């Protein structure tokens, strides 16, 4: 792996190599220059490299973002069958890095766990174990996470047929060992185990929390997920690039637009095509509206959980208006599927700008109502302030991003740290709170909605009256229908695109945007075929849910419910 020494590298990768040159590890890592500076290491060296990456002052990759397994069985050009691909972020230097751990071809792919380096790796390693069968020696609790405990095989391996069906019974479900026996100690009240969920009013979806209670205080807790697992990533592998878009909408279905934008941006970068300004502005405007919607739903549902029911309706009014706008644009409300690789499905309606402006007028009224009812309400403050506290260090160690991370005092927002579309041209602030409790998260979200409104206002000011919303690269985007009917070449392009789909050049790409809940990343690999070879989502909810069972220890059930609300767990995205 030392052959890369002679290959000239981009500055970022070159820097990474320089840093490693100073360490005793320099001989054992290879630096490759892909879309991101990429390290290739062998499993045995991985813990040492991980520690260096985290602790070295010039690396300081403190935020664990993602772990994606890759099965190269049907792909050429890779040395071994399995790879574990890590994505890390350095908050001090605002940089991403990719690490590929190349697993030797053995019957049981194995690599050391890095949970002690980045606690956030815990659930990600379980996921890789679950879906790829990677063994992580040193992992504290290595067992299935997304699929059922009684499942046989590893669904994301290339030799696993997606057509297989399994039937499971309830008794196959594994409960934590401490949950099934009762502790009785002299002089103490008996503790009881409470199963909150999978179907419970506060889970707003299907999440299972097993809690050991002493009175109403939670002593131990474990969350079990997977009830909504659809194996989105396997489905993506059996469809064409554009066919994946509707699946993306079902990740975070509360702000479906943002998911689609994140996905197509990744593909567009792999293709190297540009979307016209007008299309990108529409995406920006609708993404920000979706963000407002997401925060409205989160705060509204959270307030319902603590008993303030009325705010739910106040916050759902803007959502209704935004759904009206989305419906006018593409005909769908919840799962819009409005974006396409290269642009948008269709142009926006003629009254798009006035509609947006009307929404800008109406939304602040509802936000102000909630503000007046809630923000300084004594009961709300008692319930939210000081509960579900996450410190800055914990948030980083647990890999949290988005409003939750910002509520602990870290101003990490992808729209600011690596601006995409037009975010660097607009004047807006990244709201940050310092307390890291439920109340701070509420405040951050409230302010983010106002910032989003400001972004939309500025985007509308520069919005071109007319012009294309999609690229005119007919290898990617369907030609206009009129041209298809009258022009031979357009007809051919149309035929090829419909029958074969987009051909994305072989390669890989990790691209990330700011989802409503945090960094939403898509790691896509193409082998040059008709569809993705592998798509891995970096779901912002996943590390949050992993942290949830740690945050709620010591609090009451009521606190746990309030915390679940402010973390904004969206099962569709959590479990994919």
């Amino acid at each position, binding site marked *: 792996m030392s052959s890369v020494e002679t290959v000239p590298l981009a500055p970022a990768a070159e820097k990474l190599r320089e840093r490693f040159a100073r360490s005793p590890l320099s001989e054992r890592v290879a630096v490759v220059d892909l879309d991101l500076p990429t390290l290739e290491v062998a499993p045995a060296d991985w813990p040492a490299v991980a520690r260096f990456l985290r602790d070295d002052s010039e690396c300081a990759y403190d935020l664990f973002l993602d772990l994606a397994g890759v099965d190269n069985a049907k792909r050429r050009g890779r040395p071994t069958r399995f790879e574990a691909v890590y994505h890390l972020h350095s908050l001090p230097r605002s940089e991403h890095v990719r690490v590929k751990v190349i697993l030797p071809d053995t019957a049981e792919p194995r690599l050391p766990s890095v949970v002690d380096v980045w606690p956030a790796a815990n659930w990600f390693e379980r996921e890789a174990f679950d879906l790829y069968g990677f063994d992580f020696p040193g992992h504290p609790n290595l067992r299935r996470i997304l699929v059922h405990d009684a499942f046989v095989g590893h669904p994301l391996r290339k030799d696993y047929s997606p057509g297989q069906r399994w039937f499971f019974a309830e008794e196959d479900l594994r409960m934590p060992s401490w949950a099934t026996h009762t502790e009785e100690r002299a002089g103490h009240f008996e503790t009881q185990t409470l*199963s909150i969920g999978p179907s419970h009013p506060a889970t707003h979806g299907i999440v299972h929390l097993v809690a050991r209670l002493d009175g109403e205080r939670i002593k131990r807790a474990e969350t079990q997920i997977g009830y909504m697992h659809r194996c989105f990533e396997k489905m993506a592998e059996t469809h064409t690039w554009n066919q994946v878009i509707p699946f993306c909408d079902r990740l975070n279905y509360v702000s479906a637009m943002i998911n689609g934008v994140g996905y197509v941006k990744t593909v567009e970068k792999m293709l190297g095509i540009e979307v016209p300004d007008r299309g990108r502005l529409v995406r920006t405007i609708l993404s920000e509206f979706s963000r407002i919607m997401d925060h409205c739903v989160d705060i509204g549902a959270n307030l319902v959980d603590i*008993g303030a029911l009325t705010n*739910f309706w106040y916050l759902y009014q803007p959502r209704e208006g935004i759904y009206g706008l989305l419906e006018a644009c593409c005909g769908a409300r919840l799962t819009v599927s409005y974006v396409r690789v290269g642009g948008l499905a269709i142009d926006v309606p003629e009254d798009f700008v006035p509609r947006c402006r009307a929404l800008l007028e109406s939304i602040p009224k509802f936000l102000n109502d909630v503000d007046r009812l*809630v923000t300084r309400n004594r009961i709300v403050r*008692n319930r939210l302030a000081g509960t579900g506290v996450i410190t800055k260090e914990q948030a980083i160690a647990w890999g949290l991003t988005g409003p939750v991370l910002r509520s602990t005092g870290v101003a990490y927002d992808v729209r600011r740290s690596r601006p995409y579309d037009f975010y660097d041209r607009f004047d807006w602030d990244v709201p940050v709170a310092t307390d890291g409790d439920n109340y701070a998260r509420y405040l951050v979200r409230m302010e983010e909605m106002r910032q989003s409104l400001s972004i939309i206002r500025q985007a509308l000011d520069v919005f071109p009256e007319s012009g294309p919303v999609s690229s005119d690269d007919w290898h990617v985007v369907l030609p206009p229908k009129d041209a298809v009917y009258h022009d031979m070449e357009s007809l051919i392009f149309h035929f090829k695109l419909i029958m074969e789909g987009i051909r994305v050049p072989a390669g890989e790409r990790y691209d990330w945007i700011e989802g409503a809940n945090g960094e939403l990343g898509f790691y896509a690999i193409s082998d040059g075929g008709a569809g993705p070879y592998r798509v891995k989502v970096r779901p912002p909810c996943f590390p949050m849910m992993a942290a949830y069972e740690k945050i709620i220890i010591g609090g009451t059930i009521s606190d746990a419910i309030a915390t679940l609300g402010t973390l904004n767990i969206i099962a569709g995205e959590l479990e994919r």
Partner: protein
Amino acid sequence: MSASDVGMLALRVLAPVLVILIVLPMLQWVERRGAGLIQDRPGPNRVGPFGLLQPLADVVKFFMKEDLIPSHADRFLYVLAPGLATFAALTTFAVIPYGATLNIRGNPVPLVGADVSIGILYLFAVTSLSVYGIVLAGWSSNNKFSLIGGIRSSAQIISYELAMTTAAAGVILAAGSFRLTDVVAMQSGSWLSLPYRGWTVVPQLLGFVVFFVSAFAETNRLPFDLPEAEAELVAGYHTEYSAMKFAMFYMAEYINVVVASALMVTLYFGGWSFPGFHPTSLGGVVLSVLIFAVKTAFFVWIFMWVRWTLPRFRYDQLMRLGWKALLPLALLNLFWVAGLVLWNAL
């Protein structure tokens, strides 16, 4: 006792109970339409004009639903609990005077179910019984959420009853009687005289505030609806109840709201009386009943208004408020009233 006396007594007792039972569905309509009004949505508006027949449809639905008893439930207590809750709620109204004294052929007939000399004591004793309905429901359902709801409820009601009775003790002190008709009579005099004979709320504002807040806790309404906190405990003590048994808990809650409102009116707002109004004729008595009804309706509306405005307390915060804020304030009020009585101001 002649037959007409028995008839009159039965009427006196039954009339308010029947009125409450008839008013209950209307209250439900008011609550739901009111919630709609507050929450910027229409509320039920499909069944009948303005959705007025919606409660009727709901009652029919409750009767038609399958009545489930969980297999591991304690059947006897499970069936007893909703009845106990409704019974306790309904019987409280017996001692509340709902109108001025009627004169029938020279016989004074006070408009109150039973004009007993220990009215207030009886009232608090019976309201305490209502906690049994909730605790037994929570216990007998054999469901952890129900049990937690039941436990929360017993702790909550016991704590707040203390503050509530202490606040009411101020009124008893001023009236010098446990009889509720005496309490009303005390408040139907002059507001300017010394001793003061106007509505109790003026000299005992503090006591009223304590009583008011405690009443919310006693009736398990928001912001004190912890026993049934739906987001935390699914539905709390009545999670396992269905059909009419569930409806009985529902009824008990509304009856409790009416009783608590009527009690606030009686203790602090002069009951059926109104300044300068001394009913002698039949029309005057009817008017006094109306006055009482309007005052009570006002507080019932406040109960609903608060429910759709405020969030819920957390259990420990609720306990802290009860023991560390309301009880000391109630005691303070008691001392204040005792001082006023001592110096003949009341």
